[in-house]
């Protein structure tokens, strides 16, 4: 009995070792691959002064707090004989249709390409052999433990040697959003790689550790090189994206339309300037793209290379089609789409549910092409106003997107700007038909949906994170999902009703008018550079007719009064003319007067002899 009890105790300890082995290896892997899994504030170097928790001492390797996602997997109760397969997934947005075969999700504007760059298999291979003796098992589990300590060390080192580590570091170190993101999936089964994928991959098997009735093994299949993915991060964008933002979106996005082959996204504001060989215009802003990228692990769009198809920043573009239609679209679309809409504003973010962002995408695209010019206005306007930026800048999640604040203000009137923006958008509902900036209004109507969607996305993240063995776990934080909140911060000061008639519409507000004028003028003028666009904008604002009328009349009047004072016969001269003319005339009269007076004096003098 005793013997059996001992065996059971020993086996219980062994099971504990196996369970901890699985969770520790998962911790090591995720900690070095998935940036989002790290709790905030955790730095690479563990604080020496922090007392080490007991459970962190397993395998004599202190890693810090275990992410909640790992706890959720509940290793204590899972079937230990099941392999734990961890897929490290590189998420990129690629507009190229040739990647279609690899698409896992299709978004309206862009397509997410998820590529498994590493596959780790950690398992306890159960080999039923002779039932272990007591003494044997006691010694063997200690040996197993010792060897697994060494194995954990080499796993930790190996994580830093494989190519994916550089990608991870790029994301971590970049203050702005990256073009890509890394996510993970944990499951007990996996889809085998295709042949071409396998050819690009290498594998490494750690030497298995003998264990009672089996062995512990870790193996990895990894992509030998990630150079194909053009992973870039923009680290050069300063926080004051606004200044950059103002100019660029205006001109380029429009150009993008004709060239966007897919028509997938109307806007393709390039999320990041990085890879777009084609146009700098699409490189917009880092401001747009970057912020979104960091919003959520999944959604972080890769504004990668083909900026043209970036959805993000041109939300308006998407909205260009008649508001009614568009609004309907949005209303009919799932919350996912609407969230994506938000994303678009900020940058090509991908909401947790792949935004089919322009949910009905294609028809909109064509429209967008035609109406690109006005679309950019809202962007420009946004860029101009620093207030849009301020609420967001403080948000740690944000990355340079001015208007977005991932956890921010929600859709409540807490920020005045956003509230006013919302109000404006609502007012504009009546003016929707066929106007370029109606897109903006659509945007706002979409905001409502987005708002609703927020809860869903939050839920979604919850579901994702709590993954047990057969489930797929996505790393994502709910706070990042709330892009729709960003819309709130997004002010659309210049909601323009009608793009074509720049003078007539003062419907919503003066801003709107200016916006339309601005749009047409700006886009036509400042095509090349931001500076030019800024200059054009300033010029437009300065020369806006309503503000100038009074002042323009000012000088003639003043000159007129002068004339009246001086010369009786000035009435004939009351024509608008310059003061200098009047002064000259005055001088002429003076001379005549003097002449006459002098003549009369001489006559008098002559008469008095």
């Amino acid at each position, binding site marked *: 009995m005793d013997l059996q009890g001992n065996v059971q105790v020993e086996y219980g300890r062994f099971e504990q070792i196996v369970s901890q082995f699985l969770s520790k290896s998962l911790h090591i892997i995720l900690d070095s691959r998935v940036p989002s899994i790290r709790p905030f504030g955790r730095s690479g170097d563990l604080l020496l002064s922090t007392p080490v928790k007991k459970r962190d001492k397993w395998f004599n*390797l*202190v890693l810090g707090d275990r992410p909640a996602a790992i706890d959720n997997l509940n290793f204590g109760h899972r079937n230990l004989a099941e392999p734990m397969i961890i897929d490290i997934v590189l998420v990129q947005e690629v507009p190229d249709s040739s990647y279609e075969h690899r698409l896992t999700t299709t978004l309206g504007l862009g397509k997410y390409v998820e590529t498994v760059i590493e596959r780790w298999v950690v398992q306890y291979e159960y080999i039923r052999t002779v039932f272990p003796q007591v003494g044997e098992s006691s010694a063997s589990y200690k040996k197993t433990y010792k060897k697994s300590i060494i194995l954990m060390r080499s796993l*930790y080192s190996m994580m*830093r*040697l494989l190519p994916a580590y550089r990608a991870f570091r790029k994301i971590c170190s970049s203050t702005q959003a990256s073009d890509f993101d890394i996510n993970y999936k944990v499951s007990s089964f996996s889809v085998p790689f295709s042949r071409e994928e396998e050819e690009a991959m290498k594998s490494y098997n750690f*030497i298995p550790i003998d264990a009672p009735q089996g062995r512990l093994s870790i193996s990895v299949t990894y992509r030998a090189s990630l150079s194909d993915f053009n992973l870039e991060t923009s680290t050069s964008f300063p926080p004051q994206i606004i200044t950059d933002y103002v100019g660029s979106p205006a001109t380029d996005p429009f150009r993008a339309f004709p060239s966007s082959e897919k028509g997938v996204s109307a806007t393709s504001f390039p999320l990041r300037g990085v890879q777009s060989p084609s146009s700098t215009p699409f490189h917009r802003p880092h401001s747009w793209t970057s912020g979104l990228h960091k919003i959520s692990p999944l959604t972080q769009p890769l504004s990668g290379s083909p900026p043209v198809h970036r959805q993000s920043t041109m939300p308006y573009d998407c909205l260009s089609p008649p508001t009614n239609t568009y609004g309907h679209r949005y209303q009919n679309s799932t919350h996912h789409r609407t969230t994506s809409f938000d994303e678009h504003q900020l940058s090509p973010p991908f909401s947790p549910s792949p935004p089919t962002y322009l949910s009905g995408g294609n028809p909109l695209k064509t429209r967008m092409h035609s109406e690109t010019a006005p679309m950019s206005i809202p962007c420009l306007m946004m860029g101009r106003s620093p207030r849009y930026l301020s609420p967001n800048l403080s948000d740690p999640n944000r990355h340079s997107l001015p208007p977005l604040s991932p956890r921010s203000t929600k859709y409540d009137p807490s920020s005045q700007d956003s509230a006013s923006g919302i109000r404006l958008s609502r007012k504009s509902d009546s003016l929707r038909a066929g106007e370029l900036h109606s897109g903006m209004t659509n945007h706002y109507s979409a905001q409502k949906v987005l708002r609703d969607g927020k809860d869903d996305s939050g839920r979604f993240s919850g579901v994702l994170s709590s993954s047990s063995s057969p489930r797929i776990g996505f790393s994502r934080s709910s706070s990042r999902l709330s892009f729709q909140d960003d819309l709130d911060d997004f002010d659309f000061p210049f909601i323009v009703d009608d793009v074509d008639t720049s003078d007539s519409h003062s419907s919503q507000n003066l801003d709107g008018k200016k916006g339309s004028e601005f749009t047409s003028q700006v886009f036509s003028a400042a095509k090349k550079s931001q500076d030019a666009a800024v200059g054009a904008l300033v010029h437009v604002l300065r020369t806006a007719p309503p503000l100038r009328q009074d002042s323009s009349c000012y000088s003639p009047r003043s000159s007129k009064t002068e004339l009246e004072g001086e010369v009786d016969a000035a009435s004939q001269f009351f024509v608008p003319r310059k003061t200098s003319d009047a002064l000259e005339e005055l001088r002429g009269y003076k001379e005549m007067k003097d002449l006459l007076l002098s003549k009369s004096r001489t006559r008098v003098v002559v008469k008095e002899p």
Partner: protein
Amino acid sequence: MNCEVCQLKELEVEHFEIREVLRCILHTILFHRALGLVRPKDVDLELFEITYVQCGDVELEKKIDEKIDQFIDRVEKHPNKKNQICLSFYEEKKQAVWFTNRVERLYWEQWYINLNVAQQPKSHSGKSHYSKVVVDPGESALEERSHRRAALEASLREVLFQIIKFVNEKKDHVPPIPNLEGVSFLYEITIPSSSDSAFGMDMFKRMLQTGHPTMLS
């Protein structure tokens, strides 16, 4: 236990690269052999895109740096092409031999790091016996340098892989882990004296010291 020996792949380094390369390799080996409780610390190399892991032990860092300084001095004094640095792990056993208690070192693992230091003299003050460096700042020289640098980075990566492989393959000879934090085993870093006769003589000396290889645990 046998004394397991690992000869690491030879690396072609320039003088200014010695420190980083040695730090990387020595710390990596020690990280895998410091089986007590450690708080790993990631360190990025400046010259290469490689990240290695340290144990987070300050004392260890100091010791390693001291040894690297000694090595660099040795390289300067003996500008032979091949230089070696040896990291050994041992256990101390007290042996009573003829009324004396002798502490005997039983080496159970040895690592040989082989460096081929380029002869081009670097800007080292005070060393006049180096020939003048004729560096042609042409494009070809720069290209060559970057090629060399890339090759060294690849080789260094290979060496690190080699360490991991060795550590994984040979586990049985590792003694039981004492209940210590950090570096749990006794170790020493030595610089074999003459590179010409290096390997064979050193091994022989060590074998004499350790005596008959015995099972340690």
